[in-house]
């Protein structure tokens, strides 16, 4: 019997195996070098402190009663513990809305009381649509609106970063809405800032069109973002969609955060964004908090997602 021309003999097999091994070895070595360079670059940047470090929680839905999570207060407490057990004290904690499920005074009292357990100098919030169900956000502002402007929006500066907290859950039709007064506020708020000031924007509903069919977008966000185009680094953090999602548009990076209450389906997965009941033991993998850090000289924020498990 003779070998067909395409049949590999033993010597060829060994040679090809050697090439394959070389390919794998070089790829691993190349990846290691790149990771090392990235780590060194990060370390060099970290030496240039001061650094801003904060945590984001979202969509605690205190008062929710349903199969998807029968104990939302318990999981929110776990989220608080997760933040309190970080290896550092965050400069602040931001709750990006839907603190309560039905915006009752009792639910606002409960969530406010729970958040006093956070080990951080400052707690900031923005309202979700669940926090302004029947009163245009009045009860929310009574509980959390001290020091805010208009219908609850505000801004502040910390560690060289300018932070803007927006309210896009009032006057909802289908999409989130900022409104003329708030757009004017944004325009004036950033007018005097140098273009190299890092900007962080908080809102409940995404400021990008994540899935407009489900209302996951803000109809007049483009106007607000146009005031931020000249800045070299703009990071928008939101809640509402109960899942991690990231998108970049030019100088702006959008990060949707997960929830501490219950997951929602992925965009377009089903007819509507209804709470998803996960198999036993899986819920806490889908819930979580987010750590965010900024180091001077860095063009992007570093985000780390942490599950509640």
């Amino acid at each position, binding site marked *: 019997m003779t070998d067909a021309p395409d049949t590999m003999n033993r010597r060829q097999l060994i*040679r*090809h195996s050697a*090439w394959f091994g*070389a*390919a*794998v*070895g*070089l*790829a*691993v*070595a*190349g*990846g*290691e070098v*790149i*990771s090392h*360079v*990235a780590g060194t*670059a*990060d370390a060099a940047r970290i030496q240039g402190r001061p650094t801003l470090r904060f945590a984001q929680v979202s969509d605690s839905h205190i008062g929710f009663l349903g199969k998807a999570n029968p104990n939302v207060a318990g999981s929110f407490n776990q989220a608080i513990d997760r933040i309190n057990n970080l290896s550092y004290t965050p400069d602040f904690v931001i709750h990006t809305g839907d603190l309560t499920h039905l915006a009752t005074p009792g639910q606002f009292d409960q969530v406010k009381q729970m958040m006093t357990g956070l080990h951080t100098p400052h707690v900031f919030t923005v309202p979700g649509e669940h926090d302004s169900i029947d009163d245009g956000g009045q009860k929310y502002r009574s509980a959390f609106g001290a020091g805010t402007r208009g219908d609850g929006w505000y801004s502040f500066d910390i560690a060289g970063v300018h932070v803007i907290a927006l309210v896009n859950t009032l006057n909802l039709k289908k999409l989130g809405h900022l409104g003329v007064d708030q757009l004017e506020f944004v325009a004036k708020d950033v007018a005097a800032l140098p273009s190299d000031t890092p900007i962080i924007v908080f809102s409940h509903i995404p400021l990008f069109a994540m899935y407009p069919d489900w209302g996951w977008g803000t109809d007049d966000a483009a106007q607000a973002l146009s005031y931020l185009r000249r800045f070299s680094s703009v990071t928008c953090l939101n809640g509402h969609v109960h*899942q*991690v*999602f*990231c*998108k*970049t*548009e*030019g100088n702006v990076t959008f990060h949707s955060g997960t929830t501490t209450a219950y997951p929602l389906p992925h*965009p377009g997965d089903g007819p509507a964004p209804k709470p998803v009941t996960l198999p036993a033991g899986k819920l806490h993998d889908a819930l979580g908090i987010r750590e965010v850090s900024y180091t001077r000289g860095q*063009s*992007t*924020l*570093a*985000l*780390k*997602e942490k599950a509640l498990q």
Partner: protein
Amino acid sequence: MNVTRLAMAVALAVSGVSHAYLYIHGYQHIPTIGTAFVVQAGVSFALALLILIGGPSWLQWAAAALAGGALGAFVLSRTVGLFGFSEQGWQPSPHAAISVVAELVVVGLWAVYVIGHRRARAPQS
């Protein structure tokens, strides 16, 4: 040296450099995408080097698969999203465009190689 090999190695290296640059400058912090970028860059460099020094032909198939995969991931990230990540158009500029062009070159050179190889093996009439 075979010009096709040299051009493919250069295009692979360009794609790898582009992905490595983005990884170092922020993409490392994007879940899953960051890992995919460093893997793409590492494998690109390895294949570029081995193709350059005259490795076997399956390396060019692997390079085409890698470049095709990267192009597919690019399209997904601009349409339905990829692992919860999406971007618009040619952002980040100019790296997105550089990568896409380099990967198209790799796939194109692979096609040239395959066609040339088949013609060479075809029985002469």
